[in-house]
């Protein structure tokens, strides 16, 4: 007997049974890739090629092929780093924070969001690593015994905290994602017919049988990992913000940075999740699983976090005036009305003004419109980091060292190339692993109270 809730709408539509869920979600894995997949994958590999070329040119010739200079030493590079790290955060937020708050709508979107986290962190890590110039000595950032006297890493430096934070974040997210995947890999293992597929899915399913004893512990480990990931994700972006906030550069040296960066990260991450899922639900026929209700919930989060970020922009401006520090005041006036005014106003309009359209239900429930808005959010958040980094650095305390900065072709190539890394990984993931958490979705087919 099915007891249906009369007040909540169903999270999965189309009267699906557990067998339907397996069939629908495993379809891309069990069948030949579709034309859409092939086209998308080819495009992604082309962009991956752009990344490889730009990187080869950078390494072969030297870091001078970037336009960074002695004043703007962090240009597109660190902008892109913060941009990608921020995008990664929505994955953890969806799976961990929404799990702690028992939000069941997360179940259709958490898997792809977590995958996005991992791929985005890979893209992010490229930038600080290659910004070092001599990447072959990158291991100096690790606390390893070394042959340079007894010199160790500097534990006072936020850049070192970043090394710990990003690597912990990446590995814990990977573990969380993998543990969540095991039951679904086992489902695929029991469905595939070829010998090779049986072997690989068998290997990664680790002998999963769906025993109640294992499920009980599995649920507990998911809960504790969620509890750990939540402060972890906050710490990661807080630490990224301290890269800026602990310096004495006007425009960076502000205490608002940690919460402001975290809100921005959630905002941009949800923007990217919306971009991916609006397309994926259509192309992969997952409209019954990722419903308009899911898109609407994400739009609400985008609107709230966009407004939080907007308040942070205004607060920053106010505090710059209120502080009475002329350098701080100049830095902010220069942002809004200096030579980079176009970047500042792009940021303001994309992040503060544009998401306000989500007050209207039509805007929250129309997929093509959400897709356009999600792109706007991504563009706006890229500009935010560009504004913070470039406008604060291009005019320092000595007017004789004022310079202008724009990214070189190689820097642009590296940035576009990371989209190649991201989407190549994502397309491979969509082909070989279930994009939606089948086991969790099966548990919410009935709308129980």
């Amino acid at each position: 007997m099915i007891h249906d809730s009369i007040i909540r709408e169903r999270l999965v539509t189309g009267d699906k049974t557990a067998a339907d869920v397996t069939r629908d979600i495993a379809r891309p894995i069990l069948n030949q890739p579709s034309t859409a997949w092939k086209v998308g994958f080819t495009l992604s590999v082309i962009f991956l090629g752009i990344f490889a070329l730009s990187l080869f040119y950078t390494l072969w010739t030297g870091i001078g092929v970037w336009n960074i200079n002695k004043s703007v030493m962090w240009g597109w590079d660190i902008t892109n780093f913060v941009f990608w790290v921020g995008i990664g955060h929505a994955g953890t937020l969806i799976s961990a924070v929404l799990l702690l708050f028992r939000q069941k709508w997360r179940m259709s979107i958490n898997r792809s969001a977590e995958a996005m986290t991992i791929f985005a962190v890979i893209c992010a890590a490229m930038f600080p690593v290659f910004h070092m110039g001599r990447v072959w000595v990158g291991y100096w950032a690790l606390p390893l015994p070394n042959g340079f006297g007894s010199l160790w890493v500097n534990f006072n430096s936020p850049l070192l905290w970043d090394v710990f934070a990003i690597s912990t974040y990446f590995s814990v997210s990977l573990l969380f994602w993998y543990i969540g995947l095991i039951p679904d890999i086992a489902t695929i293992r029991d469905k595939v017919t070829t010998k090779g597929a049986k072997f690989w899915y068998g290997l990664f399913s680790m002998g999963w049988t769906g025993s109640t004893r294992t499920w009980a512990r599995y649920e507990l480990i998911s809960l504790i990992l969620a509890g750990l990931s939540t402060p972890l994700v906050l710490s990661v972006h807080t630490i990224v913000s301290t890269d800026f906030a602990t310096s004495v550069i006007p425009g960076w040296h502000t205490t608002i940075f940690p919460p402001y960066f975290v809100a921005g990260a959630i905002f941009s991450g949800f923007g990217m999740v919306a971009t991916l899922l609006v397309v994926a639900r259509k192309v992969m026929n997952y409209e019954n699983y990722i419903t308009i209700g899911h898109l609407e919930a994400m739009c609400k989060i985008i609107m709230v976090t966009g407004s939080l970020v907007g308040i942070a922009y205004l607060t920053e401006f106010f505090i710059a005036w209120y502080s009475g520090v002329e350098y701080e005041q100049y830095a902010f006036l220069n942002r809004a009305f200096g030579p980079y005014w176009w970047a500042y106003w792009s940021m303001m309009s994309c992040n503060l003004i544009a998401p306000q359209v989500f007050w209207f239900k039509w805007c929250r429930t129309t997929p093509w419109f959400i897709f356009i808005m999600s792109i706007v959010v991504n563009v706006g958040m890229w500009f935010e980091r560009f504004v913070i980094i470039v406008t604060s650095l291009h005019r320092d305390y000595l007017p004789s060292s004022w310079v202008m900065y724009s990214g070189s072709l190689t820097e642009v190539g590296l940035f576009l190339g990371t989209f190649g890394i991201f989407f190549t990984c994502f397309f491979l993931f969509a082909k070989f692993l279930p994009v939606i958490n089948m086991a969790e979705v099966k548990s919410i087919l009935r709308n129980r109270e």
Partner: protein
Amino acid sequence: MAILDKNLSLRNRNKMLVGVYEDEDNVMHATQSLVDAGIRVHDVYTPYPVHGLDRIMGIRRSRLARVAFFCGLTGLSLAVTMIWYMYVHDWPMNIGNKPERFTPSWIPVMFEATVLCTAFGMGFFFFWRNRMLHGVKNEVLDLRQTDDRMIIAVETQEGMDEKSTLELMKKHGAVELREFHNGVQTIL
């Protein structure tokens, strides 16, 4: 106490009575009535977590949270020891005249190391306890138990009334009954 849960392997067991179900409510009722009749349910295999089933079967609450706590403490002590050794003991560095002993700037690394050790320590013990390892042979009783079927497995004991056990399973909606012995399944 052994860490590995011995209940998870199906090897070297007496004959098993297997009931196949399609509905989670039926599985719950069947398991409850088997337990009420004094029959030990060996395990229930489900494609998704069915809440409450572990309590009906009388499975003890996992102590993974305590494991997590001790892994976290280990991580924290490792981090403090590492920073103290490198920064205070082995090669003190004067950076901006900041104090060299404990300062708040140690906290981020301490925190990250705690989280890292907790997550991986807990993962390690989770896999160990659940007999999960790359390459472990999967012992599924039915290929659809990871898809849409739910399986109740009862291990026969000396003097057990097999017929009434099977009838009890059937009564609560089993769509199929089977026997499993030495790796061979027989449909009843």
